[in-house]
């Protein structure tokens, strides 16, 4: 931290009255003998007064009506609303991703024996048989692409510009207008425009929070899975835990959720109640972690044959 920044931090906190008593006395004593700091403080005061004096324009006349229209266009409360953003992707990529999404996958998961968080500990292993999709190409079974870590997502965020340059030949269902601008929800939710999974979820959308994590810890090796879960409602729940929910790039049925360690047990309990399954016991959160991250995905429902023996 530079000298100016050090002084500015103390003066700025002093100006806001957000400084411990002892530090306040130190700052005031220092101000007595430091001309430079007094000048800096004058500037900070001027800036603060200017910013506070700024007027915010009146609420635009049509905004409330616009919000209502958007709500009208949105599906009901708590429903899963896919983010139909305007990524235009090459046909080959669309076809490949579409095939991956359509081909039922082979995976193993373990049902919860209990709804309490500790219920992750005891479970019986079951096998889900591979199902074939209706796609004509014999694509080998592949695991669902795991949601990348938010860091990776952030680095790949400017996909749109690159993708639009190679738009020729994009499958029709993957070619949508970018709905940003006016009635966003209407564009997102227009029911008459089915979107292939490959065309969806091509960018990160932070749903809530705005947390910054220095040391993030994921207590599970693999994403938690539920056969039928409402990811948007779960994202909404994460809001109440003051966490962050991120729609994961290239994982149409996934979210990355982040909360502070103090909220982890609440989140885990909620996920458990929503029927999310884990492949192992959660590891203990190390003391250095300031965020806990968990990936959740909607997994295909197990076939009746795969039900555990009763």
């Amino acid at each position, binding site marked *: 931290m530079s000298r100016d920044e050090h002084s500015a931090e103390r003066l700025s*906190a002093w100006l806001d009255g957000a400084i411990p008593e002892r530090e306040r006395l130190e700052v005031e004593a220092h101000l007595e003998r430091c001309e430079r700091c007094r000048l800096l403080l004058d500037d900070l005061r001027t800036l603060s007064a200017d910013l506070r004096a700024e007027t*915010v324009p009146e609420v635009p006349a049509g905004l409330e009506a616009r919000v209502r229209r958007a709500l009208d266009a949105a599906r009901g*409360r708590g429903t899963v609303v896919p983010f139909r953003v305007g990524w235009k992707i090459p046909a080959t990529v669309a076809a490949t991703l579409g095939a991956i999404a359509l081909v039922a996958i082979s995976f193993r998961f373990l049902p919860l024996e209990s709804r309490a968080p500790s219920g992750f500990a005891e479970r019986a292993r079951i096998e889900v048989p591979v199902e074939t999709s209706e796609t004509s190409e014999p694509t080998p079974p592949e695991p669902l692409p795991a949601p990348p870590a938010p860091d990776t997502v952030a680095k790949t965020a400017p996909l749109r510009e690159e993708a639009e340059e190679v738009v020729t030949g994009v499958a029709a269902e993957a070619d949508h207008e970018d709905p940003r601008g006016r009635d966003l929800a209407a564009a997102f939710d227009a029911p008459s425009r089915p979107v292939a999974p490959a065309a969806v979820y091509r960018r990160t959308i932070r749903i809530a929070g705005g947390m910054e994590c220095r040391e993030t810890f994921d207590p599970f090796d693999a994403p938690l899975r539920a056969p039928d879960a409402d990811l948007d409602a779960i994202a909404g729940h994460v809001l109440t835990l003051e966490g962050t929910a991120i729609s994961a790039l290239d994982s149409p049925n996934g979210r990355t959720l982040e909360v502070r360690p103090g909220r982890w047990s609440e989140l885990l309990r909620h996920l458990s109640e929503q029927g999310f399954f884990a492949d192992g016991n959660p590891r203990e959160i190390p003391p250095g972690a300031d965020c806990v991250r968990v990936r959740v995905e909607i997994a295909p429902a197990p076939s009746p044959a795969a039900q555990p023996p009763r």
Partner: protein
Amino acid sequence: MLSVRMERADRAEDAEDDLLRRARSGDRSAFDRLVERHLSAVWRVAWRLVRNADDAEDVAQETFLTAWRGIGEFRGDAAFATWLHRIATTRALNHLDRAAERMKRASRPMEGPDPDPAAERAAGPREPGPLARLESRERLRRLAECFEKLPAAWRAVLALREGEDRAYDEIASLLGIELGTVRSRLARARLSLRECVEGGAR
């Protein structure tokens, strides 16, 4: 007089609880009433962060959509207004992030949240210059220009502190950051703003 005011406030709170309860069970008309009540506050925080009417409208709309979709999970641990503020702030930051991506090639951003301390030491201390000496209209013009050049994370703390008069702990909670980070970001934002305004907001 005071007791009358308090009773009115209690009634308003009751009414809000009732609206929330109905909205949680899927009553759109109740949620519309909540939109009506909170639109102005959401608009204000959106505008203060994005400083552009079109974007602020988008942010406000996205905020209420997110709230409607997530209201079933809102348990009332915090005030509904606080919850909306948190959503609006996050949405506004998303807008700023996207705008920053678009601007990346066009212009060099101001110093980011984690500047290189070695480079700063090499640059030496900056000379202070009282901003009050600048003609006020010119200063405000520069201020508006400089504010938009600040990194999104800094704009957020500054907008919430100066624009919304939020306490440090409230800002920390809204943005999901530590108290110390609020303090250091505010200082860095103010220092950068001062430097930029003094420099004439090129």
